[in-house]
């Protein structure tokens, strides 16, 4: 029974680990099978081209790509400040950035409403000055999903910046490179794998966001209804459409996962 290879590893993994591992795997596979089993394959074509689906897909793509873009433009500088500048209260700031990861998204959505809603302390003067109403608009969706998604990018990039040996930047400086050139030619290329990973994580989180979106931006078809919100709404009324929408999201996720996997591993 205890035959072992010369390197000491057992020839067969323990049975208990196999069993538990398979149960763990089933946890992921069973729901997926349920989804596929319930899929009305013959009507899929017409279901997917329905207005509800195409509009939700459009809103979701705009919101998730917008969130990824904003996370990139604002999240990278924030990560840099957290990693490189020793300012007072840095740990508090880091805690604030991480907060959206742990608070329930619905609470985040409510908080956004109190700040940026029509009566909010920013929303009200903004509305008075420009007439702009953020909640229940596509902007509201972008703001809500970015709130939830950006921390993924910030922590990933901050970690990468912390792990980057500062001597690479020092070496670049001794070769006459100013701050900007060092950032462009050394720092960013060296953290590129983490930057890409953080961006994908943030984008995927934005795509699947539900609680903050529905609380802050509502569930208006064609305006603020994202794919997850559409699934939720359709479950009550039209199960076939709900399944079709779910398949769209699974497909998008799989495409991204498979498409990035090679590059991801190779870069690490």
């Amino acid at each position, binding site marked *: 029974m205890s035959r072992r290879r010369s390197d000491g590893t057992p020839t067969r993994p323990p049975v208990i680990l196999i069993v538990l591992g398979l149960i763990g795997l089933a946890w992921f596979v069973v729901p997926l099978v349920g989804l596929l089993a319930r899929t009305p394959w013959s009507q899929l074509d017409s279901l997917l081209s329905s207005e509800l689906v195409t509009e939700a897909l459009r809103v979701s793509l705009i919101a998730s790509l917008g969130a990824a873009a904003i996370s990139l433009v604002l999240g990278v500088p924030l990560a840099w400040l957290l990693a490189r500048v020793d300012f007072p209260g840095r740990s508090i700031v880091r805690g604030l950035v991480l907060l959206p990861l742990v608070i329930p998204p619905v609470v985040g959505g409510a908080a956004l409403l109190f700040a940026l809603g029509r009566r909010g302390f920013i929303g009200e003067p903004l509305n008075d000055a420009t007439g702009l109403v953020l909640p229940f608009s596509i902007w509201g969706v972008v703001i809500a999903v970015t709130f939830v998604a950006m921390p993924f990018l910030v922590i990933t990039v901050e970690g990468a910046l912390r792990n980057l*040996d500062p*001597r*690479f930047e*020092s*070496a*670049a*400086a*001794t*070769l*006459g*490179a*100013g*701050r900007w050139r*060092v950032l462009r*030619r*050394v720092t960013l*290329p*060296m953290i*590129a794998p983490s930057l890409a990973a953080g961006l994908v994580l943030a984008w995927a989180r934005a795509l699947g966001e539900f609680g903050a979106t529905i609380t802050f931006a509502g569930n208006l078809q064609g305006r603020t209804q994202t794919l997850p919100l559409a699934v939720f709404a359709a479950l009550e009324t039209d199960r076939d459409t709900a399944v079709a929408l779910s398949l769209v999201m699974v497909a998008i996720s799989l495409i991204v996962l498979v498409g990035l996997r090679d590059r991801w591993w190779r870069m690490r």
Partner: protein
Amino acid sequence: MSGALQAHLVVQRDEGFSLDIPLTIEPEQTVALLGPNGAGKTTAVTALAGLTPLDGGSINLDGKVLDDPATKTFVPAEDRAVGVVFQDQVLFPHMTVADNVGFGLHHGSRTATRQGLKGWIERLELGALVDRRPADLSGGEAQRVALARALASEPDLLLLDEPLSALDATSRVQMRHTLADHLAQFAGPRLLITHDPTEAFLLADQIHIIEGGRITQVGTAEDIRLRPRTRFVADLAGANLLPGTASRGDVVIGGHTLHSAEREPTGQVLATIHPRAIAVHRNHPEGSPRNTWQTTITRVEHYGDRVRLQTSVPLPLTAEVTPEAVAALDLSEGSVVWISIKATEIGIEAQ
């Protein structure tokens, strides 16, 4: 033609350590800063490179003030013409060899830059490596790239921080030759940071010994080796180094042959013998040591609990013994003694 470096480096570090050293290097002069780890050598490099500001003193290179806390002058690293070869190279891993070498070459036209790059690639024989990434280079190759990168930025001062210590024995000898060649061609002041006395002796014109953030002795290799001023210097740098020709463990030095247990390398070598490994006898010793001869003590120097005895014929050697041994054998200048050295105590290093 570059001008001299005149510096007084004062850097206060948090842990109660302070660096306080004067440093003057003339153009075309190589100074070695020789000391143990933690003596402040790397701090000196970062201060000269502009990566750490001084807390006191000043740095003046080629008549320009680079750092002077008294007048609040500080020229940042990117604006200093100071080239650094880092200990473990610190090549940019995401760039090819060519891009690494060309990183600091960004003046003049595109054609001029390309010509300059080509020149440095040729001078350091990197032609076959231009498209490789640092991860695919051997230690010696990476160090050549690092040297090319530093020289290509055309600095007025060249800093070499332990340039050979990360290399294996074979590539160290090759790289030492490469370094010697290119140091000789570099017109400005050159500073070599090292903890290896052999490296300092072979590459530097003048050696500064640094201990605990202070310079304890300045001199030529000969001065340091023969007249170490402190116990520490004697231990660190007081080894006997004898240039000769080796063949299968027999090292011929000025007509005298030493027998070493080391069969390799052959050709031009340095035989190294630690002073503690040399035994001194009043009578002809019988025993295993394969190197035995009679000689006269020319000099006796006391260093605390040790005494260094010097002989000059047939080989200039320093032996280290205890004061008790000196008393027991009644040794003084002019005493005739027998020297014995075991073959296993004679190291051979390719020159």
